[in-house]
């Protein structure tokens, strides 16, 4: 018998969960919001790729791309994307001490040190990105 198969059990009763089960409690809503930030991450890297394609295709294509970026609805949507990306960064970096346990002299480094280190790294990386986009000045 296929082990994945389950025999018919007429007595089993499973209560159906509503689709929006995660709206009932703030903690659940925060969890699903955090999970949905992956859409913003995917969108951001695809948009980055789209700009690189537009640049490769020439000035006219890139000018069209920039006009699209400046359209108010697109800009408003991108503000939302930025908010989601920031939410991703904060929730991701706050979880760092759960994934990374550092020991110094046999004692575990406290969580706040690991978190601060990651935030410092975030600051340095953001500075490097802006520095690079400004052309190294």
């Amino acid at each position, binding site marked *: 018998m296929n082990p994945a198969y389950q025999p018919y059990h007429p007595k089993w009763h499973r209560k159906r969960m509503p689709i929006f089960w995660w709206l009932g409690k703030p903690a659940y809503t925060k969890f699903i919001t955090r*999970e*949905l930030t992956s859409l913003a991450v995917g969108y951001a890297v695809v948009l980055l*790729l789209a700009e690189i*394609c537009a640049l*490769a295709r020439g000035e006219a294509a890139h000018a069209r791309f920039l006009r699209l970026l400046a359209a108010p609805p697109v800009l408003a949507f991108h503000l939302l994307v930025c908010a989601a990306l920031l939410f991703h960064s904060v929730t991701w970096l706050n979880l760092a001490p759960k994934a990374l346990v550092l020991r110094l002299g046999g004692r575990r480094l406290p969580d706040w040190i690991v978190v601060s280190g990651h935030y410092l790294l975030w600051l340095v990386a953001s500075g490097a*990105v802006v520095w690079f986009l400004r052309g190294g000045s």
Partner: protein
Amino acid sequence: MRRSREPFFWALFSSGGMLAALVLPATALYLWVARPLGWVQAPTDAELVARLAPLLVRLVLFFVIALGLFHWAHRFRYTLYDGLQLSHLYGLIAIVCYGGATLLTVFAAWTLWRFP
């Protein structure tokens, strides 16, 4: 017993999440908010191309794009399973998510290789 592929995809998800957390907010705010609003001086096309052309820069861009895509694929897959309770579509959702990320990664590699 067949070995699970989960750790492999989890590693991509996790490195993509870290890279995205560190570089994407600054990139998005600079390129897609500050630049269209005129808060920063927009680089010309020639300047942008010159900045993105070095092989090392294109390699970094490839990792940011590819790992960001696999971060999306893995996390969104589970959002669909748990959030919308679609676990009965397990195989289909996995194929669409990882397949989509793979196709876009191949396209990104091709585009960046030929750039500019």
